[in-house]
């Protein structure tokens, strides 16, 4: 009888020790090798075919390499269900931090919950999701605002101080509306009487922007400022202006985003494209990694971490970007010096 009790106690002890050891080992795995930088970060992107996200990825990659972090990237490609399953895959694989660019806000809330349950720090990129810890994104309004201010200064100096604007918007998306509103507000701080002559829906596409601008210009061609809520829109409108035979010397064009190299070419041409309300996609990726490190170390982070936006002009763009053939490189030092807002002017 005594022997039996002793043996069972011993077995129980061994069992208990094993469980604790197991648990401890598990903890250790989650903590990572050095304790300072996460070993693995996963990003489930959305629509990564787009130039913008290609550049976000570039920035993310570069920063991850700099810090020695292993980066795994998956593309949900506009499919919410895929995004959820990819996120689950990454968590199961054992990423230390998860980044997602939500396909949809409601669906992404599920991922937020899951990450919290599993104890995985989660960063949202681009658009807010309920229950999130932190979001890394630009401020559309402020970006447009900066572009407006720089454009206003050019108009004041070179175009006689009066501004008549043709704005190519994408009213279906709130961020785009914010950009145009921001631009006009910024413009008006320099030129209080600035007028919007045309506010058109170019659907964010160059050929559409071309068509609607052509029509608008025949109704009223007396404009001297073109603003596009993305580069394609601005460039399409510029083509329409040229085709209408109007005087480019009396025009200034401001684009938004800098998602690809088109704006650099435009600025290099010496034409009316003088201002770019740049959003530095590379910096978005860069900051996502920075934020991952912070979260991983348990630091407190703001709910919305704003990545830099800045008005690039023909004078200063090469401080921030350089172009070799088809490949552009970003000047991290200068970009990192750009002051960031704590919060957006408008949401």
């Amino acid at each position, binding site marked *: 009888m005594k022997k039996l009790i002793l043996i069972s106690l011993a077995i129980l002890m061994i069992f208990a020790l094993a469980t604790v050891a197991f648990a401890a080992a598990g903890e250790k795995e989650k903590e990572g090798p050095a304790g300072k930088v996460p070993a693995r970060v996963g990003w489930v992107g959305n629509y990564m*075919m787009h*130039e913008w996200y*290609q550049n976000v990825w570039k920035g993310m990659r570069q920063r991850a390499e700099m810090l020695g972090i292993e980066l795994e990237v998956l593309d949900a490609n506009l499919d919410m269900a895929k995004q959820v399953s990819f996120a689950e895959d990454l968590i199961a694989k054992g990423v230390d931090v998860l980044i997602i660019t939500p396909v949809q806000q409601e669906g992404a809330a599920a991922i937020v919950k899951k990450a919290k349950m599993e104890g995985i720090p989660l960063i949202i990129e681009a658009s807010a999701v309920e229950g999130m810890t932190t979001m890394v994104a630009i401020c559309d309004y402020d970006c447009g605002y900066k572009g407006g201010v720089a454009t206003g200064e050019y108009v004041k100096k070179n175009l006689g101080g009066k501004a008549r604007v043709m704005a190519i918007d994408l009213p279906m998306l709130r961020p785009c509306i914010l950009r145009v509103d921001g631009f006009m507000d910024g413009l008006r701080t320099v030129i209080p009487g600035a007028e919007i002559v045309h506010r058109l829906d170019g659907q964010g596409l160059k*050929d559409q922007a071309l068509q609607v601008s052509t029509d608008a210009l025949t*109704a009223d061609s007396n404009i001297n400022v073109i603003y596009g809520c993305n580069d394609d829109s601005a460039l*399409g409108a510029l083509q329409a202006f040229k*085709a209408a035979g109007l005087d480019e010397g009396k025009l200034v064009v401001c684009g938004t985003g800098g998602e*690809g*190299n088109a704006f650099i070419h435009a600025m290099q041409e010496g034409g009316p494209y003088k201002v770019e309300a740049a959003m530095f996609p590379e910096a978005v990726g860069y900051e996502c990694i920075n934020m991952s490190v912070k979260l991983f170390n348990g630091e407190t982070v703001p709910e919305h971490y704003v990545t830099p936006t800045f008005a690039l002009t023909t004078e200063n763009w090469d401080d921030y970007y350089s172009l070799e053939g088809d490949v552009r490189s970003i000047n991290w030092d200068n970009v990192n010096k750009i002051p960031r807002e704590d919060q957006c002017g408008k949401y």
Partner: protein
Amino acid sequence: MFSSESSKGGLLTKLVLFNEIILVAVLVVISAAISIGTSQFYSTSNILNILRDSSMAIIAGIGMTMLLITGEVDLSIGSLVAFVGVVTMDIINKTNSVFLGVLAGLGLGAVTGLVNGLVRTKFKVNSLIGTIAMMMILRGSVYLYKLEAVQNYHQLETFYSVGNGYLGFMPIPVIIMVVLYVVFLVILYRTVPGRRLYATGGNEIAAKISGIKVDNLKILTFVANSVFAAISGIILVSRMNSGQPNAGVGFELMVISGVILGGTSLGGGEGTLVGTLVGLLILRVINNGIIILRWNQDLQIVISGLIIILAVYIDNKRKVARSKIITT
């Protein structure tokens, strides 16, 4: 006994039978209404603008009309326009030759049409489904080829003038359109292949029995259709000054809507180039009018949609009126 029976039915029925006249009347009415609303409509620059902009759709419409007459359809032309634009720009950049760029673009169009035709005739895949698949393949492939837009490096004068130049006071795209239009008007109505197109669409078996090589004819028409779309794509890339992978979205729907508005039947065997011209002009004028009248731009889609419903309604009425007249 039978000629008199064809005058059965009311006045409305008779009018509805003269499809093109109604369309022209609609175009005139809409244009008049817009020009009352704003004096800019009738300005030379606006008219030329409308013509230049519609020339791309009308050129594609020539091909699409012929294809629909044979009873087939092609939904891939929007994606093709984007791909052709990107390829053309890229080749011009690499070879500094507009000729080679255009050749490449047209070649891409021809190959696409050939594949569409073979998928339909050899693999017997319904052309709606087959060309939707092609649309997706092309759109995906253009992004594989070039993620970013292809900029115009050399700024060649010839290239610029394709889309933006003038011959006298006439924009070059309009001249291209007029030439193609007249040539194919003659081909469709006066030549043997034209007649065979109508027969193939009207009754494929009867056409076969009459010795028409239906499969070959369809393949040829698919190729022609895609080449026309390629021409539109080249004009577009010249106007945009860059090859955009995201160009041409919705182009196929707009062209097909205009063609159907013009009286061409989805079932095949019927259709006129005149109708297509007027139908596409009507759609373009509506879009133009809404902007220069400063109406809410969202109305563009709504009004176009309503006009198309009206067109199909009139088409149905025409078919019913016709069936009442048929005796046997």
